[in-house]
């Protein structure tokens, strides 16, 4: 994660004046964070790429609304998260609609979200962890993603999630407990078999 610095403040000022060159700097600074967070929230490459780019487009349109003392990323994260959650809701609706459809049952059973293919390692336990993350609810999934996949500190997470550090630690506790339960209930997928 990029830390707050003079450069970002200056870039934000130029963005608020409508500079696309300055916005390009912001996009290049945060595109990987945006992509991987979206991937953690929606589970597949195509959607993550599309949603992260769409979040930048929306951020550009509304960047003048960011208060001068605010950092870009926590504000941007809200846009990205809302887009991802909205996408997940639509996906669930489509899926439940297809379940009702007798014409195409193959669509109903197809679930490509949180595919093990997204994990670079060949380790089966890691693939199971990834799929278990996909089963967490959004509130718990996001803290796991921000902490484990983007390496954010509690302070950065609290800023991005608009809450205090106590809430972050509490969510992390329940998220990890749920994750442990999910892995424990899967055959051979517990964390106890880890060396």
């Amino acid at each position, binding site marked *: 994660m990029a830390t707050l610095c003079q450069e970002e403040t200056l870039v934000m000022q130029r963005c608020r004046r409508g500079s696309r060159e300055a916005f390009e700097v912001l996009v290049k600074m945060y595109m990987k964070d945006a992509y991987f967070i979206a991937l953690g929230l929606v589970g597949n490459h195509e959607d993550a790429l599309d949603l992260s780019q769409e979040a930048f487009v929306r951020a550009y349109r509304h960047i003048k609304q960011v208060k001068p003392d605010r950092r870009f990323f926590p504000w941007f994260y809200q846009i990205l998260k809302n887009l991802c959650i909205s996408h997940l809701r639509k996906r669930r609706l489509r899926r439940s609609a297809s379940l009702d459809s007798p014409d195409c049952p193959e669509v109903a059973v197809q679930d490509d979200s949180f595919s093990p293919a997204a994990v*670079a390692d060949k380790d089966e336990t890691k693939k199971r962890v990834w799929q278990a993350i996909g089963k967490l609810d959004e509130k718990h999934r996001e803290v796991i993603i921000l902490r484990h*996949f983007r390496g954010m500190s509690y302070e950065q997470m609290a800023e991005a999630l608009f809450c205090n550090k106590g809430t972050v*630690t509490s969510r992390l506790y329940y998220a990890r407990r749920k994750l442990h339960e999910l892995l424990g209930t899967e055959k051979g997928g517990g964390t106890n078999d880890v060396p």
Partner: protein
Amino acid sequence: MTCHDYKDLMMGYLDGELSPEQKSRFENHLAGCPECAGELEQFRKLKAITDHVNLVEPEDRIWQDYWGVVYNRIERGLGWIIFSVAGIMLVIYGGLKTIEQIIKDPSVEIVCKVALVALVVGLAILFVSVLRERLFFWKKDRYRDVRR
């Protein structure tokens, strides 16, 4: 303090986010509480795997084209807005001209002309009403600045 109160400290301990004072307080609790020590061990194993789940990195081409795609979408968005505004203006202009012609046309029956004028007036009232309602609620919306 109960074990439940130590759960937040446990997370901070696991992630190296505690101050030296908090760390020593938690370690003191841990020394006398096998239940928390066991739970911490479980979390430690889970963190060890989760920290090392590496996601597939997209090809370099994706990152090279990333800004280009965002830029094109921004540009197209602007294009769509201008196109839509121009389209609406042309439709309104064309509609008004057509209505004007119908009203001025002596061969069209008076009933038809009155109905047409009533239709336009009704539409205008509906439009103004919806617009005023939207503006009213937008101004009074306490949450409109939330999360910006």
